Every structure is written in C-alpha cells, then in structure tokens.
C-alpha cells in the first residue's frame, strides 16, 4: 500500500523516496522515478518521514506535463558529468572533473556563444534561475545561469541524424508539429554546424578523451570506447538519469537518444576539431614515461597478443629509427595542420605488425619455415626458454580469438538498447508508447523464463586486457618467455634478423586529406598470416583491420622511404651516365 512505500529502488536499491509534483515517487539517491503515484490523499502518508515532497522550482512550469524549462546544453552538461564521474570511479585523477573537463566545457559554451558572453542586444534572452528542487543537477555552483538563444533567422543546416531514427522522425513530423521538451531543441538542430561546433552524443566522448589526454591518463581511445560499449561509462540511454523535470520530447530524442555505438574515427576527429575550436594550447608532453608512448603501449599489446617479450627490443628500435617516440611527434598541438594526428593505440600495434614482418616476413611461407626449424630445435633442446614457434602461437591465439569473437558477436546480438524510461515524441502517443513498453517487458519476462542461461545481472569489472595469458599455466599456452634465437643471428656483435627480405604493403601512400586513407586494404590481396595478425589487433582495439593497415603503411613508408629513394636515385644516376 502507499502509506509505507518502503520498497527498495529498482535502480540503486536505496530506500530514500521523494515525491514529485506529479505525485510520483522518485528516488532521491539516483533520481529514478517510479510508476507508483500517491493516488489517495492519506493523512498517514504525510507522517511518513521517509518521503518528502519537492517544492516546485522557480522555473516556469509547463501547463500540461509538469516539466520545467531546460536547455540542450544543460542536458549535455549532465551527460558529461555522469561520464566523468564514471571515469573517476574507474580511477582517473580526481582533478580531471573539476579542473580539466569543467574548464573545457565552460570554454566551449563561451566559444559557441551559449554562455559567458555578452549578449547581442536584439536577440531574445532568457534568464534562468537556479532550479530549487532538491535534485543534484544544480549542485555545481558554476553552472551557467545565462544562456542565450540563437535567432531563428539562421539558415537551416544539414540535420545530421542517426539514420535509423530519421525515418521515424519524419513520420512523426507529418502528423505533429516539430517540437521538443527542451526550450531550444528544435533551434538546436537547425543551427549552422560549420560555424559553431555543435554538441552531439559522440562529442561528449571527444570531450572525455580530450580531458584524458590532457592529464595523460593511461587510457587509450579504443579502451575508452570499449568501456562505453561495456557499460562502464554512461552513454546509451544516459538521459534516463536526467531529473524528472527535464522532459525529453520530440527533437530532444534526436539529440540525446543514440542508437549506435560511437566510432573511433568520429570521436578522434571531433576531439581534434574541438581542441582547435577551443584554441587550446599545446597539450602536456607525451614522454617516454607516459603510458601513451609507443614503447609503453607496445609492451602492453605484446603481452596481450601473447608474443615474446624479446620483441619489445625490436619495437623500440623501430620506434627510435623513425622518430615516432619523439615528444614533438607524439604531443598534440591543436590546430596544427602540418602534423599528422597520432592514434597512440593504433600506432603501437602497427609497430608490432611491422616488427613481425621484419622478423617473420608473414608471407604465408617464411614464418612456417622458421616455425618448423624452431620445432626441431625445441625437440632437442631442453635448456633455457623454448624457441618461439609461430605455428603454436597461431593455434593458441586463433583458438582464443575465435572463442572471444563468438562471445562478442553473441553479446552484440543480445544487447538490450532500451531503458526503463519510455520515450515518446508527443504526449499524443504517450499511452501507445507506454503500452508497447509494457508489452515488451511482459514478453521479456515470459521468454526470459524459458531461456536456458540465467541472465547475469552484474557486468564484469572493467579490464584493460581482453586476452590474458599467464606463465603460471603449465599447458604452454603462454609465449611471453619464449626466445627469438631461431630467427635472429649475430652479425658483428649485433643481433639481426635472419630474414633478409621484406615486402611492402604499398609502394605509394595515398593522400589522406583527399582520399581519406593512406592506403587501401583488401583482404584477398595480402597473405593470410598478415591478415590474421591484423585481425587479432583489430579485435583488441575494436577498429577496422584497414585502420591498422594504414598505420603499418605509414611506418613502412618512414622506414624504407630513404632506402627506396636512394636506390632510385642511384639507378637514375647510373642510367644517365650511360646515356
């Protein structure tokens, strides 16, 4: 019964209920609003000390649904807050939230003329007072209280929409006029995007990545995105944490409700645009002691790929040779168009791929030959670490990868995209949406009972490693300690590769600015071993194999360009002499 509503909150299991103006219970810990309403005025109820009524804020209330006025940027501010808090929980330095991200955000609001700026006289101005409700949205005292709207006269920009959503929106707009729950939802989508970098959901991650890079946290972009997908960082359905009074409606959904996962390239590019837009100075130096330095990352990825530790010397040599470990190469200078932006994680795995090509050639022939040789040696040799056998490594890693890939595919297919909070474009179809939602829940319950596996309620702890190999395992599945003796030879006191050859992935690089890629990857045109290695790292980083291939081509270009150039010049000189 209603008088003692002491049930635990479905979301956070707290018993800490408040009452909204609409007479609904909401959880004061997590702001989850229940379906339960106080229908009968009961005197006993008021005496219940656990429930407090929230008074209306001073904001103007809309007549029908009890929501208050709010602006799109406030929504994004909330999203960012949730995300950075999640990052804090993952262990990033506590200064990141208040000192770094918060300042970036303020800077953005100012640069995009949404706050902290002198308002142009003829335009409409709305003053927002701080909401007095007991929600924690406004706990940040620095919250911009002055926002100004753009006039409608601006030409309609291209509406960048999530394609799966576009159809539904257009359909809705046929019947209902365009509107939103927020004050500026409709204006927001019409803004000219070129002029002012418009906030989008993927952009919130660009903000996070920028802040992480600024404080040089040991998280790569691919990792950040993986944590997002795994649910450790709020992204999908993050709007369900909005306070009850911020009603999401109509076009707001198009802005906040995402139906696809962020893509590496998009977040990466937008971060650089954003850094330039904000006129940020040179970022803190990425030195050898930083996690993002290729030498460090190579170590991590060598471990994860179950490759011998000895390879690290070789990755370091390549890094040094082509100067990609230099501070100036690695450090981000916003707005500097002459340098290529560094994808630290992709770069590191590409270095490993190049090293593997240097030592094993990966031409579907030589690596197996070396492997046979190593196998022979291992049979006779029991002293010291075993020789690294490519074949064994391939079998072990391939098996593991297949299992993980299958699991990942199934998880993706089983992913639940919808949250408890129902979304509707207009009040008109609210009841329909609610009914439909209820039916989905019913069906989920019905078939959930019939499904074989028990749904695991808790998500696994976030981990930097997706594959792990331990030398403690006696089954010989860990190759970290294996030696490269079979593939190296000593020449004048220096260890060099036995392999005298090399094949280039491409002879000429494309123009990245014109073509969008440095190189073009077609699986069939390359050896299968090479493809396997790309596939392995593609799985670890959750990026396209072609993405890594581009980077491999870039490294090869740097490594061999001089040699090729010299040879070419030498030949032409010879030829011209003959003539």
């Amino acid at each position, binding site marked *: 019964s209603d008088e003692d509503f002491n049930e635990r909150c479905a979301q956070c299991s707290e018993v800490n209920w408040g009452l909204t103006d609409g007479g609904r219970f909401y959880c004061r810990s997590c702001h989850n609003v229940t379906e339960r309403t106080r229908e009968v005025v009961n005197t006993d109820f008021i005496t219940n000390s656990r429930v407090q009524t929230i008074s209306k804020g001073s904001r103007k209330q809309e007549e029908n649904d009890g929501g208050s006025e709010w602006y799109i940027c406030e929504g994004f501010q909330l999203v960012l807050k949730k995300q950075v808090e999640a990052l804090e929980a993952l262990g990033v330095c506590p200064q990141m939230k208040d000192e770094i991200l918060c300042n970036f955000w303020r800077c953005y609001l100012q640069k995009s003329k949404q706050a902290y700026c002198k308002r142009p006289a003829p335009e409409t101005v709305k003053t927002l007072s701080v909401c007095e409700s007991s929600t924690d949205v406004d706990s940040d005292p620095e919250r911009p209280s002055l926002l100004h709207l753009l006039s409608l006269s601006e030409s309609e920009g291209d509406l960048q929409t*999530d394609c*799966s959503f576009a*159809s*539904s929106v257009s*359909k809705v707009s046929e019947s209902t006029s365009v509107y939103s729950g927020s004050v500026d939802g409709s204006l927001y989508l019409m803004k000219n995007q070129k002029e002012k970098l418009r906030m989008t959901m993927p952009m919130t991650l660009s903000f996070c990545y920028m802040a992480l890079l600024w404080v040089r946290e040991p998280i790569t972009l691919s990792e950040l995105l993986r944590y997002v*997908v795994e649910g450790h960082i709020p992204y999908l359905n993050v709007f369900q944490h909005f306070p009850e009074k911020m009603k999401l409606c109509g076009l707001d959904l198009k802005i906040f409700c995402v*139906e*696809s*996962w962020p*893509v*590496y*390239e998009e977040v990466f590019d937008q971060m650089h645009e954003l850094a330039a837009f904000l006129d940020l100075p040179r970022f803190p130096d990425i030195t050898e002691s930083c996690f993002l330095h290729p030498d460090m990352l190579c170590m991590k990825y060598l471990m994860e790929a179950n490759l011998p530790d000895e390879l690290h010397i070789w990755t370091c040599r390549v890094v040094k040779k082509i100067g990609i470990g230099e501070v100036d190469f690695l450090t981000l200078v916003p707005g500097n168009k002459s340098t290529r932006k560094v994808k630290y994680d992709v770069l590191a795995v590409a270095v490993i791929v190049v090293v593997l090509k240097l030592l094993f050639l990966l031409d579907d022939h030589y690596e197996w030959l070396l492997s046979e040789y190593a196998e022979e040696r291992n049979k006779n040799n029991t002293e010291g670490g075993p020789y690294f056998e490519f074949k064994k490594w391939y079998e072990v890693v391939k098996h593991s990868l297949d299992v993980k890939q299958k699991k990942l*595919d*199934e998880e*993706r*297919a*089983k*992913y*639940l*995209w*919808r949250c408890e909070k129902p979304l509707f474009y207009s009040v008109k*179809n609210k009841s*329909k*949406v609610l*009914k*439909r*939602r209820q*039916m*989905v829940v*019913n*069906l*989920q319950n*019905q*078939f*959930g*009972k*019939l*499904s*074989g*596996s028990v749904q695991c309620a808790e998500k696994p702890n976030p981990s930097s490693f997706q594959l792990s190999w331990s030398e403690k395992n006696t089954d010989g599945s860990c190759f970290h300690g294996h030696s490269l003796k079979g593939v190296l030879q000593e020449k004048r006191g220096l260890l060099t590769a036995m392999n005298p050859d090399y094949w280039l992935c491409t002879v000429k690089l494309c123009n990245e600015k014109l073509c969008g890629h440095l190189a073009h990857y077609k699986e069939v045109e390359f050896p299968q071993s090479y493809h396997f290695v790309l596939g392995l790292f593609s799985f670890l980083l*959750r*990026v*396209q194999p*072609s993405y890594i291939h581009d980077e491999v081509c870039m490294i090869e270009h740097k490594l061999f360009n001089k040699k090729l150039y010299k040879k070419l010049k030498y030949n032409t000189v010879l030829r011209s002499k003959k003539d």
Partner: protein
Amino acid sequence: MDSFLEEEEEDEEAPTVVVAGKRRRRSHPAAQAALQPPLHLPFPPPQPVSSNEHKLNFKKSKEACLSYIQDALLQKQWKRAAEFLTCYVESLEKDYSREHIGPSEMIWRIGTEILWHHSQSSMKEFNCFMEQMKTLGVKRYLKVCLEHVFHLLCNGQIDEAYQNLSLAESWRFGEQTAIQDKEMKLIQAYRGLLDYYSWSKQKNILLEQGEDGFSDLAVEQEMHGYFRKAAVNLKEIIKIPGVWDIFVKCYVDLLEFYGDHNEARQVLNEYAYNSKFPANPNAHVYLYQFLKRQREPKKSLISALKILHDIVPSHELMIDFNTMLQKSKKRKKRRLGLEVIFAALDYAGWKENAKAWSCLARQVKQIVVSDKHLDWIKQEWNSRKDWWPAFHFSRYLAKRNWQEDKSLSYEKALVAGILLGKGCKYFKYVSHQGCKAQLKRFRMLKKFVNRHNLVYLKISGPPDSSVQP
C-alpha cells in the same frame, strides 16, 4: 486496439532517370528526346559500409539477433531461441518498418513456435502470449485468432477453441473488419465445423438411443440446432473459390442426413466443375462417391472419374474406373480402360498392387484371345517398352514377387509373357518356379503364353499401317 505501428505500406516507385532534359540542351533533337522512354535503372546493390563495419547500431544488432534465433530454431534449440528472442522483442518499440514481415509478425511467429515446442512451456502461457499478439497487430488480428484456435484444437481444447472463434467473429475494428473479410469467413467456417462436430456427436447419441428403442426429444432438438448453425457457415465458405475439402465433406454429410440430395449434388458439382476453383482431385472423388451412394447410372460415374484420371492418373480409384470401363459395351470405353490401367502402373506406388496387375492381365488376355484391337496394346506399349522391362520385369523383381506374393507374380508374368514373349526373364523365372511347385494355373499360363508367343512380335514391331484401328 493499438494500430500505432501498423503503418500503411507505401509503394516505392523504382527510381526513374529522365534523360530527356539533358539531351535537349546538348543538341537539337527535341523531338527525339520526347520519344525517348524514361530510363528505368535497377536498384544498385546496397553500398558496402566498409568504414562503418565496426559501427554497431540498433538495427544491425537486432538483425544479428534474429539470425541467431533462426539458427537456434533450425536446430530445435528452443531454450537458446527463447534467450535471443528475449533480446529481440525490444525491436517492437521501433517497429516502423515497412517491410512485409516486420518485427511484430516475427515475434508472433517465432514466439508461437518456441512456446509450442519448449518443454517448460504450458498452454496457459501459450494462451497468454496469443492474447498479447492479438493486441499487437490489427492487420493480422484474425490470422492470429485462427492460429490460436488451431493450437487449441491440437491440444484437444475444443470448447476453448469454440469460444475463441465466437469472440473473433464478433470483432469489429472499423475498415479493418472489412479488409479481413476472408479471414472472417474462415473463422466462421471453422466455427461451423465445430458445430458440425457437436451435431455429429448428438447424432451418434441418438442413433445409440434409437437402437435401445427410445429417443430423447431434447437431444434431437439440440442436434437440429447445431445443424442449422453449422450449415449456415459452411455454406458460406464453399461459395468462395478455394480448396475446402473438409468443409464440403461435412456440409454434404449434413445435407444427405436431412435428405437434401439436390442441394448436395449441386454443391459437389459446383465444387468439382466451377472453373474459378483451383483444380482439386478430391472434388471429383467426393462427387464420385456421392454419385455412387446415390446409385447413379454408370455414365455419370465414368464422367466423374474421367476428370480424376486426367488430374491424377495414379489415383486409387483408377481400379474402379478400369473395372467399369472394361465391362462397357462401347469399344471406345474399353480402349480408355486399357489406357487408364497402363497409366496407373507407370507409378511406383502401384508396382506391387496385385489388383491393378490382374486388371491389366485380364484386359490384355481378353484382347489377345479375341485377337481384336492388338493395336491398342501396341500403342500403349510403344512408349513403355523402353523402361517397363527394367521397371517391372527384372529378374530381381521376379524373384521378390514370387517370394512375397504368388498371385501378383502370376498376373505380372502373364502380362510380361504377352508383351515381351516367352523369353523374357520375368516370365521365365516365374513360370519355371510355378511349374516346379506344380501349380496348375502356372502351367496353364505357360501354355497360354506359348500359344500366343507371336503377339509380342506384332506389338513391338514398328508402327504398322495394316493394324490401324
């Protein structure tokens, strides 16, 4: 009722590229341009989304989920299918698809299948699911109702099925009711069928009571009530062109019981001969059986079976047909009889049917003895002489037939001996075995074949102008 997601399907026109405008500008022939038909380009294949392959979105995720479900269904992994369906149902909330089969229909079909086969599922849960599915799509409301009824019937819940049919019959939903007119007719027809079932039960009670010498007026009244209800609905459905075997049979049964033979005849004639109805062998079977019950003259029986022979030459009634035709005084009919029995034996199903072989043997023997119409046999044999020996008259079959069915092997040996001569493997083996067992009729058979051994030369020779009919 929730019609929110049942959007009208819009026909998307194929993209047309009009080249006329461009051509006009380039050079003079405006007139020629006007003559140019618009160029219809086929749809290009979907763009490979190479750069977005790793981009996972709602739609892709649900598509993948669906294919997992289908795999599980094919392998009868009901638990696994249920597990994935649990995740798939979300797509209901975004069911804006204009595809022919949208998520809601998928969920209905797949869910039904899972609940029907899953070991932990119960009829109660099944019913609950079906009720939800009924509210999900107005456009297929009656279809879902009907399917529900079928499952109830499979489960022996006849009263519940009847209730559901009555409920569905009273469904009204604006123009949707009119659109689903055909489904409604089916609903009514099945209700009629269940009424017939009740009628038939009452009838049996009465018949039993009649044997005991007393009758119950109330039961009889009830029975007539069922008759009226059943007859109204059954009559309606069989007016629509279609295959309504079960309905027709029941309706005719009702009519015959109440002595309305004219109506029954009319119904069956309509069902068999109305060209709007799809070709249906059973329609002719029912008509034939009715005519036989009515002791109609041979002529009408033969004409009913003639059509059946044209549609299904291997039908079991072809024996009856042949028997009737053989007895006929008309030459043409006897000729047809031979054709019918030869045609029937072309089918593997008849291979070991002693009755059919005896029909053929009798007619062939008769022709040989009378020495008239050998050309009939010749004509029939002509198209079969290449494959019948291997198909019917191999040594292996001779052995097996002899072991399994002596009289079959006798009939077949007779036919083989006449068609292929006394040297044929089948005949030789069987007659040898028969004589060894000292069976009199096999000895007679041997004699008969020896006496008419020249026949096979006549019938297997090239078409001879002298033996034209």
